[in-house]
């Protein structure tokens, strides 16, 4: 029996001669990361272990992206601890101040996470990097402390689920719709403890940006990792960025899958996830009939804050004003995306429409800062979670969508389809 891409990468990183799903193994990690919520706890635990130095100063990134620019004294203290730890240990990749970008958009762009890697991050959306053909998964702070100390971690080899997208997707359909559709089909625990491998002709035509969005939300189906086999599009993305050597892996033809789903997505519409679960999805044509008025629109996050996402939003917002009854908040995910958006004139389009531009930050997505919802307010957001209280008051509501639906909704003041707005291309 052959191996899946996930199994092959894990096998490469362990001392075992063979592995199979369910095995508990120790794997060597190529890269580890933490943010300003998870790192302070990991640093505290690291210091208790009794190791003096981290395993490798060039394979750790500390990214204070959640509560920065610091929203209060306590969060400033947390970032200070990270900064001091990074300096004391000589950790090479501390992204501080104006270098801060949303970790899962930043690290692939910096060429620090690569195909074939085994990556762990103290952030659940670490699964994003699976889009590069890497094994990448989220863990907690104690796990991260252990990995910083020893350069390895214990893992259970996951069973794999294969999702095949067939057909040809129509205009306005993006990676976000494919993953929302998937979560709607299999549920928020449909891939619990498992690897979720995405393939098929639709995937092969998707940009890296869309692929990152898909793997980013694998965790929302409970998956340990999302993964896409690398191809020319992956290599084109990686080759100018890679800071070290990497290896390409593919699934064997006779690899074993727990489930195989094959869906023709030619007629797929933009999807919207209703409160309070990402699996609670409806196609946009049904949603618009319900006239859902909104108080805030958010375009950003590790899911949909990339340049391609901002371009889509700008295409819809160009020359228009947002509805006066709502706030539109837009977050370019990294400083480099911000700069490109500025040069391409996207920022001017956003500001002219009445949008608020925030610095790169995870703040609004988790109800942290830079746009928190009040009691009873409704938001449509390009983020990944719509749990109770996720973006603010426990009695606020979050709807999840792609950037086109979010931008159209900002103009019309209610959840709207992109084709309801006149778009000049």
């Amino acid at each position, binding site marked *: 029996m052959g191996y899946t891409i996930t199994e092959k990468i894990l096998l490469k990183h362990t001392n075992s001669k063979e592995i199979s799903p369910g095995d508990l193994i120790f794997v060597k990690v190529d890269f580890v990361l933490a943010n300003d919520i998870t790192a302070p706890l990991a640093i505290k635990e690291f210091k208790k272990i009794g190791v003096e130095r981290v395993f490798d100063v060039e394979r750790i990134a500390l990214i204070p992206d959640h509560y920065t620019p610091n929203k209060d004294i*306590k969060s400033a203290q947390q970032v200070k601890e990270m900064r001091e730890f990074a300096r004391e240990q000589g950790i090479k990749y501390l992204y501080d101040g104006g270098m801060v970008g949303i970790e899962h958009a930043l690290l692939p762009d910096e060429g620090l996470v690569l195909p074939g890697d085994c990556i762990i991050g103290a952030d659940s959306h670490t699964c994003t990097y699976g889009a590069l053909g890497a094994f990448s998964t989220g863990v907690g702070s104690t796990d991260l402390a252990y990995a910083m100390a020893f350069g390895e971690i214990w893992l259970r080899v996951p069973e794999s689920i294969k999702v095949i997208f067939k057909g040809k997707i129509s205009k306005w359909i993006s990676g976000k719709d494919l993953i929302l559709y998937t979560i709607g089909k299999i549920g928020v625990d449909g891939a619990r403890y498992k690897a979720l491998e995405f393939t098929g002709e639709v995937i092969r035509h998707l940009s890296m940006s869309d692929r990152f969005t898909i793997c980013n939300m694998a965790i929302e189906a*409970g998956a340990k990792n999302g993964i896409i086999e690398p191809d020319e599009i992956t290599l084109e993305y990686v080759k100018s960025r890679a800071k070290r050597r990497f290896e390409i892996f593919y699934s064997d033809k006779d690899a074993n899958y727990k489930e195989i789903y094959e869906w023709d997505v030619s007629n797929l519409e933009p999807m919207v996830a209703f409160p309070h679960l990402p699996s609670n999805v409806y196609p946009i044509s049904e949603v618009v009939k319900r006239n859902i008025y909104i108080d805030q629109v958010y375009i950003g996050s590790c899911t949909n804050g990339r340049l391609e996402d901002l371009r889509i939003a700008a295409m819809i917002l160009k020359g228009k004003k947002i509805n006066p009854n709502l706030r539109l908040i837009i977050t370019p995910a990294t400083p480099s995306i911000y700069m490109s958006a500025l040069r391409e004139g996207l920022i001017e389009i956003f500001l002219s429409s009445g949008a608020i531009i925030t610095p790169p930050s995870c703040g609004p997505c988790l109800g942290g800062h830079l746009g*928190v919802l009040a009691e009873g307010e409704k938001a449509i957001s390009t983020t990944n979670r719509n749990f109770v209280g996720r973006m603010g008051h426990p009695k606020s509501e979050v709807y999840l969508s792609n950037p086109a639906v979010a931008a159209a909704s900002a103009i019309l003041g209610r959840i709207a389809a992109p084709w309801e707005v006149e778009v000049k291309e």
Partner: protein
Amino acid sequence: MIYEGRALCYGDNIDTDVIIPARYLNTTDPKELALHCMEDLDPLFKEKIKEKNILVVGENFGCGSSREHAPIALKASGIQCIIAKSFARIFYRNAINIGLPIIELPFAIEKIKEGDLIKVNFIEGLIENLDTGESFKIKPFPPLIQDIINKGGLLNFAKERIKGGKL
């Protein structure tokens, strides 16, 4: 490794955002986290755990964010042990790593009602409902996880690894 207490029950897909909302994640202090534990889901949680401190929940408990603050907040609130139909994977790891006792009971979770007196015996691998007299056999943890649990969490496991010279 024997815990006895009354059951406090919640449903499926309890996420870490409601266990400890992100607005309180500007600290790592367990006591401070405990003050806000589960408040968005159940404002009476703090009162209820005075009487009922064995958490009995449905599927996919602890889904969402990787914040270790979630099991830390539950432990600091006084929760002795969590019995779930299933756990989300990061929460599962985190609980084991910090030494919060958890156990999966996939086929009989509905046989425990709020307020029932529950005894969990990790050594014998048994959950007993002392009010109804029913008992359920638990699947033992794999040896590696058992080892981490027996040492009191991943940190102690790591310390022993250093003592053993296996760096």
